[in-house]
């Protein structure tokens, strides 16, 4: 028998209100809201329906010392979905929430504005088959959250361009922050959660989404510490997932998490994604800075299981990647790495200190990875295509920049490395902007465009070119003319590279055999182990090219 109930009242400590729907197929939906403290109030319009499924909705404003607004649904197959928001300390929540359960699954979502000393909104979907996806956004020490988010479990298709309904949690309003309308198409058999959130926090703030199932796990998060704000669209799914729109053509049988985010802060910031599969393969990607700065246009994702990327690449293992621009006054770095269960490692990163920016596309994968028409790796691979620019810094008493000593301080650089499981075969490639000084004035600058690096460990095959076992990599760098050879520029003085031969380095190690470059002209390679191109074979450790004058 289908039943609906309304409940509510006041206690000595606060108020509560809710509604419950139970249909005769075992589908349940509910809403509940509460607030505590003197003067607390719960103003709500709540409805529930049962019959051919169960649904419940509420439009609620809860004010008090603390407040909670939540909704959820579950079906007879064990699919559950919930969404909730809470705030503590001068709490105020305005929320529109809904939850629905039927034979194919359960879903819940909310559009909420939260204010409080601490506040959080989260959504969670768990399928009866054990897939789980969640999304959450949180502030501490005061702030405001605007969020649209939800979670679903079962079998669903989302289309944010379609008519809004209780299954639509992502928004085309992304252009309000990012200037680009976002249209998402998501097909899920399992669980999925997502959010579009803005966080204005004076000291803290975090948005994250995670998914797991069958031993696969993926998570993505954006975070600030100190003053800052986050605008993020995130999605995480576990099971059989297909995504179009956020990162085109992503498919995964496992777990996947991704975000499109912008983040700025006066003192901190971090955007990261990570995935692991049931065999212990792990891939992660991260961007961070400290001090003033900004990350924008950040597409980032991680996946574990069997992954397909836009028909161009496939990975059976774990993969992570990002495309972003990062700017800060005092530092910043981006990195990606992957490890398989046998300890094969590949990583790539770029870093600068002082004022500058990084524009990068990078990624890493562990397992069996294939790139259509290019080749494959069974092990670990990482690579990047980046531009790194350290803005001119004032030289004072032998210092480059504030607190950076040119003699011992790390300088901006991009690097990529790979090693076999026992570390027997290793390659490392690096482009470093080092020992810069001016010929005429107290200013330096280190721009570089098109740093392309890639390294892999394990069995590597580049179609029609070579096969390798061990570790291999290459890098190519184009330095920008800007700031390096502009003697007539009145704004940007000319520069002299004191030790240009160390701008690029490549090294390889095969056991106790070691080789490293002494020359660079914009392109380098490194091999450890064995490589054959059909005509020639390299065995041991080798790098190139070598100085033709030697």
């Amino acid at each position, binding site marked *: 028998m289908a*039943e609906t*109930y309304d*409940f509510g009242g006041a*206690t*000595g*400590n*606060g*108020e*509560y209100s*809710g509604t*419950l729907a*139970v249909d005769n197929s*075992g589908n*349940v939906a*509910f809403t*509940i809201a*509460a*607030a*505590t403290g003197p003067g607390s109030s719960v103003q709500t319009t709540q409805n529930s329906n049962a019959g051919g499924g169960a649904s419940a909705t509420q439009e609620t404003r809860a004010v008090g010392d*603390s*407040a*909670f607004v*939540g909704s*959820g*649904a*579950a079906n007879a197959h064990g699919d*559950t*979905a*919930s*969404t*909730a928001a*809470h705030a*503590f300390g001068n709490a105020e929540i305005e929320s529109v929430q809904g939850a629905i359960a039927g034979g194919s699954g359960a879903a819940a979502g909310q559009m909420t504005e939260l204010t409080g000393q601490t506040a*959080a*909104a*989260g*959504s*969670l979907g*768990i399928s009866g088959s054990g897939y789980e996806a*969640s*999304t*959450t956004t*949180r502030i501490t020490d005061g702030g405001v959250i605007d969020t649209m988010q939800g*979670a679903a479990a079962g079998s669903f298709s989302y289309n944010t361009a379609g008519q809004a309904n209780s299954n639509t949690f992502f928004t085309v309003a992304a252009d309000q922050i990012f200037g680009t309308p976002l249209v998402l198409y998501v097909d899920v058999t399992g669980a999925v*959660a997502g959010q579009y959130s803005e966080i204005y926090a004076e000291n803290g703030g975090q948005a994250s989404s995670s998914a797991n199932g069958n031993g696969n796990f993926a998570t993505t998060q954006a975070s600030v510490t100190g003053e800052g704000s986050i605008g993020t669209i995130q999605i995480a799914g576990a099971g059989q997932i297909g995504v179009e729109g956020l990162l085109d053509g992503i498919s995964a049988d496992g777990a996947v998490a991704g975000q499109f985010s912008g983040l700025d802060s006066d003192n901190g910031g971090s955007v990261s994604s990570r995935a692991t599969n049931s065999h212990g393969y792990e891939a992660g990607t991260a961007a961070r800075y400290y001090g003033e700065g900004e990350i924008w246009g950040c597409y980032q994702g991680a996946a574990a299981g069997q992954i397909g990327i836009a028909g161009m690449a496939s990975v059976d293992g774990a993969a992570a990647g990002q495309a972003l621009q990062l700017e800060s006054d005092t530092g910043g770095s981006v990195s990606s790495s992957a490890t398989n269960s046998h300890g094969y490692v590949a990583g790539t990163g770029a870093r600068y200190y002082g004022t500058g920016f990084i524009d990068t596309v990078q990624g890493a994968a562990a397992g069996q990875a294939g790139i259509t028409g290019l080749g494959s790796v069974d092990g670990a691979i990482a690579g990047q295509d980046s531009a790194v620019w350290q803005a001119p810094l004032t030289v004072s008493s032998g210092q480059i920049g504030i607190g950076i000593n040119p003699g011992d301080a790390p300088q901006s650089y991009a690097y990529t490395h790979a090693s076999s499981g026992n570390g027997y075969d290793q390659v490392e490639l690096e482009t470093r902007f080092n020992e810069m000084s001016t010929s005429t004035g107290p200013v330096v600058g280190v721009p570089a465009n098109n740093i392309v690096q890639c390294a892999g460990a394990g069995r590597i095959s580049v179609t029609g070119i070579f096969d390798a076992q061990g570790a291999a990599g290459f890098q190519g760098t184009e330095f920008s003319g800007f700031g390096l050879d502009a003697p007539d520029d009145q704004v940007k003085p000319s520069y002299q590279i004191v030790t240009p031969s160390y701008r690029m380095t490549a090294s390889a190690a095969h056991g106790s055999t070691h080789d490293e470059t002494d020359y660079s002209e914009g392109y380098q390679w490194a091999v450890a182990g064995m490589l054959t191109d059909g005509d020639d074979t390299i065995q041991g450790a080798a790098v190139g090219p070598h100085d033709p004058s030697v």
Partner: protein
Amino acid sequence: MKKSIIIITGLLALAFMVTGFACADPSIPATPETQGITTTTSAQVSGWFDEEQDMSWQISTSPLGSSLTYPNPSIPVGPYVIYVPGNIVLEEVFGEGNTTNGGVLYSSVYSEQTSATNGDIEYSKQFSAETGNQLAGGSNIEAERLIAFSTDTSGRLVSSEYIMVDGVGQFSLTDNVLLCPFASDASDFVPQFCNMAEMGSDLDISTGSVSTAASDRFIAASGDYPVDVDYRIRLTGIGDEPAEGSVSAFMDALSQEGKIDVFVRVPFDNPEDGTLYLLRTGLASELRYEELSSVHGQVAVFDKDMHYESGMRR
């Protein structure tokens, strides 16, 4: 008089274990302040002897006299109970007068009335009551008696002894009640329960030697140990002569075990929001047990040992 020898040796172990639902009886934690009562009585008398002892004890997780509360925070809705453990806001809204676990009330009674006239009586008794938490093997009430009585006249020894434990309680989360990390594998909840066990004996003899031991345990820091009630009585003659008179021992138990239908379990993502359970409670089992053993005449041996235990882990 025709000499008749009746020998009854009884050994009864009644252990309430029912499959398909979880037996409750989770015990109750001790109050912050505890008491201990110990008495020792020894008498060797020709003539008249009288001993009367009564103890009644109630202990509750809520103020005595109030109704048993659902665990906080719970909201009865129609035939259901919405229970949201871990939700900080709802816990505060419903916090006044409610406790984290469902309300539990235990009662226990021990009494003895012994009177001997016109005879030789040897009586010794050790009694202790301890209101603190007990582990397995411990007792909250424990009484042991040794009595020998003989008479050349019309003297009689009349004695009765009674021990009872009654426990009632609302449901609670298993993980909140039992420390054993595997206990919740069987059931997320300790269901509602209403269990009572009574044991005792009556004795009216002109000669004989009797020993009794009564004990119970229902105060414990966690529900990992079952509630116990034990009673044993042994009546024999003195020397080569059988005991003469009548003796009976009884045990009554009523166990009503609830069930919890977890209609749905919907966790929220943030830990501060807890997990919502939609529950339907009801009576799943009702067990009645009555036993009375009586002998009359010349009794060589009357021995009866009764044991009751009830709990989630046994």
